């Protein structure tokens, strides 16, 4: 019903052009972005931060120490790309590393004024690290997690024990007002990428402390419900919870005021309404549509185009290591050969996807196209099934409830048809799958926490840091925090932590390639597709740049007068 109505509405808009898709003089410096959800929180340590719209606000209101440098290239879909091996200073002007003391020295930019009028100093950096280490928010402490991943000294799991001392020690020290030393436990390539992640963007400590209370010394309530004071390109103008956030360009921004004066970021849950508004010229960018909707926008034209990039969004079929019979390697490989890859790419993603040929996003540093590849080959799948001890699927019925393919019910419009394609293909080798859509919260609990789901389709989780060691370490090592299929292979484990700490990039990439070969040969994640991240955009709007967190930087956007 909803899809039918969506097409009905948008088709009418396309043919009748109910309003000229003009950008009025008033709109020249105002840009309207429509999204299906609203900004839920502005605290990096609040659960609401995991809402994509909250991330969008944070990356534009706050500022990092360093950022990936532009690659100077763009995708076929017109989206600018970054160079994940090259960094440019933001709040940090420069830095150097002393291998003897394992210390980074950051020289901070002077004269940076935030939205509250405060000047950026070393105190803000120390505050940000101290707040992350306090693990005092409601969300799993992601600031701590990021610094732990980057190898920052003192950010160990010990500090999470109930009565542990979580105060900042000498791992981060102020040399003077504009110089900071950060000690690391080991030198890692991940250290600088970590600093680009919005979970560790820099807070305006003076403004935050002004809103601290005895019960809430880290101002979580203020940041969650009121503002994210920092030194970013945009300042919060208004925030209507559950509905809309507006931001205005920071006039004192150190890189110069943004080209667009005001951004309206509004929740419009109905897909049809977002499309209609974009086509009518009442919005400039819409996001989080289905692949089919983007295809419709491409075909319809009407002053609208679609910008896209195959970045780090992927689809895989997860098989839990701890759930029999999925510990059987031949069975896993049989399933990998039974997946209808091409149909999924064309039907499920409307051609806006490529086959995933590895276990790491292909845009990431250290990606390796593995020798082992799986293509749809039902004969081979049947043979492997036989080899696994389940000829023609016989014997799988002794594992009741295991052949249920779980996926997030809220993603039904995309994952439902894909799950049906897989179900149909598996039936041809004698494996009867039952589809099991479940609410996102239940999916997260059972897959990430309880690990009691045997098979699942996942297209939403991605490693935020664009290096292979991050995409593999937490996810594919025994006891790794993101290893929710409980994959365990001593050969893979043996590479860690050495692969983190290898300082020769060539050697490091070689080790990562070997790890990817091992995993691909005995897959726990059956890689299916890398699909495009897309935006519906009014003609005349440009400058979209893809970041691994999938959030647009409003500062980069331009609107033609």
């Amino acid at each position, binding site marked *: 019903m909803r899809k039918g109505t969506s097409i009905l509405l948008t088709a009418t808009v396309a043919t009748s052009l109910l309003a000229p898709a003009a950008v009025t003089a008033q709109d020249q410096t105002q840009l309207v972005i429509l999204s299906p959800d609203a900004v839920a929180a502005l605290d990096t340590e609040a659960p*609401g931060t995991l809402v994509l719209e909250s991330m969008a606000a944070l990356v534009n209101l706050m500022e990092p120490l360093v950022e990936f440098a532009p690659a100077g290239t763009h995708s076929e879909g017109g989206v600018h790309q970054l160079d994940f091996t090259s960094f440019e200073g933001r709040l940090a002007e420069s830095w150097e590393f002393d291998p003897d003391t394992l210390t980074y020295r950051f020289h901070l930019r002077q004269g940076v004024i935030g939205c509250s009028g405060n000047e950026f100093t070393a105190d803000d950096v120390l505050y940000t690290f101290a707040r992350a280490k306090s693990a005092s928010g*409601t969300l799993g402490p992601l600031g701590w997690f990021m610094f732990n991943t980057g190898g920052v000294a003192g950010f160990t799991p010990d500090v999470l024990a109930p009565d542990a001392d979580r105060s900042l020690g000498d791992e981060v020290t102020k040399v003077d007002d504009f110089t900071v030393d950060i000690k690391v436990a080991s030198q890692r390539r991940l250290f600088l990428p970590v600093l680009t992640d919005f979970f560790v963007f820099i807070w305006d400590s003076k403004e935050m402390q002004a809103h601290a209370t005895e019960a809430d010394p880290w101002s979580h309530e203020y940041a969650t419900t009121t503002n994210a004071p920092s030194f970013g390109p945009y300042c919060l103008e208004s925030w*209507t919870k559950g509905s809309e956030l507006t931001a205005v360009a920071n006039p004192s921004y150190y890189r110069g005021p943004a080209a667009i004066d005001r951004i309206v970021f509004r929740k419009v849950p109905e897909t049809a309404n977002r499309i*209609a508004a974009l086509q009518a010229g009442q919005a400039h960018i819409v996001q989080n549509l289905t692949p089919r909707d983007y295809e419709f926008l491409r075909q319809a034209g009407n002053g609208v185009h679609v910008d896209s990039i195959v970045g780090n969004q992927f689809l895989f079929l997860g098989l839990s290591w701890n759930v029999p019979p999925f510990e059987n390697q031949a069975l896993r490989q049989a399933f990998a050969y039974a997946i209808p890859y091409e149909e999924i790419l064309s039907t499920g993603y409307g051609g806006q996807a490529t086959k995933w040929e590895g276990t790491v996003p292909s845009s990431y540093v250290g990606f390796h196209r593995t020798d082992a590849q799986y293509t749809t080959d039902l004969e081979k799948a049947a043979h492997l099934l036989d080899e696994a001890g389940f000829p023609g699927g016989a014997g799988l019925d002794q594992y009741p409830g295991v052949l249920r393919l779980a996926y997030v019910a809220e993603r039904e419009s995309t994952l439902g048809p894909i799950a049906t394609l897989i179900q149909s293909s598996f039936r041809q080798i004698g494996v009867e799958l039952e589809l099991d859509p479940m609410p996102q919260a239940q999916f997260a609990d059972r897959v990430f926490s309880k690990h009691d789901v045997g098979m699942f389709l996942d297209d939403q989780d991605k490693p935020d840091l664009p290096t292979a060691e991050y995409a593999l370490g937490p996810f594919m090592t025994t006891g790794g925090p993101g290893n929710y299929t409980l994959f365990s292979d001593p050969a893979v484990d043996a590479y860690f932590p050495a692969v983190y700490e290898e300082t020769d990039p060539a050697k490091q990439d070689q080790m990562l390639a070997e790890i990817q070969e091992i995993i691909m040969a005995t897959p726990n994640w059956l890689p299916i597709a890398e699909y495009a991240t897309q935006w519906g955009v009014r003609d005349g709007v440009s400058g979209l740049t893809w970041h691994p967190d999938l959030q647009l930087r409003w500062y980069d956007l331009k609107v033609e007068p």
Partner: protein
Amino acid sequence: MTGYALRRLGVGVLQLAAITVLVFVVMRFLPADPVGRLVGFTASPETIALTRDKLDLDESLPDQLLIYLGLREGDQSPGLLQGSLGDSWNTGAPVVDQIAQYLPVTLELIILAFVAALLVAVPLGVLAAVRGSGRLDAGIRFYGLFAGAQPEFWWGLAFIFLFYVTWQVAPAPLGRLDFLTAPPPRVTGMLTVDSLLAGNLAAFRDAAAHLVLPVVTLAFVLTGPIIKMVRQNVAKAMASEYVLYARGCGLPTRQIAAYTFRNSLAPSVTLIAILFAYMLGGAVLVEQVFSLGGLGQWAVASVLSFDFPAIQGIVLVITVGTLLVLLAVDLLHARIDPRVAR
């Protein structure tokens, strides 16, 4: 009457307490633990343990209940008896603040829709009953069936298609105000009221224009069953012996209609009150279709994410609202028919 009101109020308080405890306990038996979603997929066992500790989920069920009620200290203190509904696990914001944010949006919508529905449905229902079987009655009955034949969101989308897309006489269904309209200072949270209080007629016009289609959608669906109820009750009253007697005595039609209306009012009021509570459910979909951001949408998001404090707060507010409406109805009922209070 005062004794009846106090008795009724006492029962309401007991009902509220029972529902509060029941909802709290039922939530804990949902088939998923919310921590998995809160900590994300990169969470270590230490992180999961820390989060469970912060949310008091590592306490026993009775202890969690005591903390929620405010009868024991915990990380999630203060509790209900101290006037706190806790903090949302989704946003981290106090549930009370969020209810204050979302509830006025929904109230504004359903109150206006309810008033519109009553203004249309009651006269039509009475008219249909008075005129008896005829074209008007058939037409009204057809409308009653027609309007109720599709859910609210379907009518909402149909109205958007007609009034916004095709005829371009309604504003875009993109929220409560146009992008260029500055919202009035918040007093009640209802934009039409706040804009009038601020003397901001431009904002009032914009807010009212954005409410027309949602209100019409809800009222359109609601009007059908109200017409049907009023018509049945008035027709039943008109066929009663006291009306026949009044007619036999030669009383004027207006006076007979007044007697009839009063006697048919009691059952109608009860049913209308139930409909009012039901409208909260219908409002969810209308809020979704018109991007209004009200309590209904927040409730759905909270349920889907197993945000226990938010769900408990929402249920509590809806329960209080429903109990107050039912209390008011009982008192009105007693006023109409004093035998009820005996």
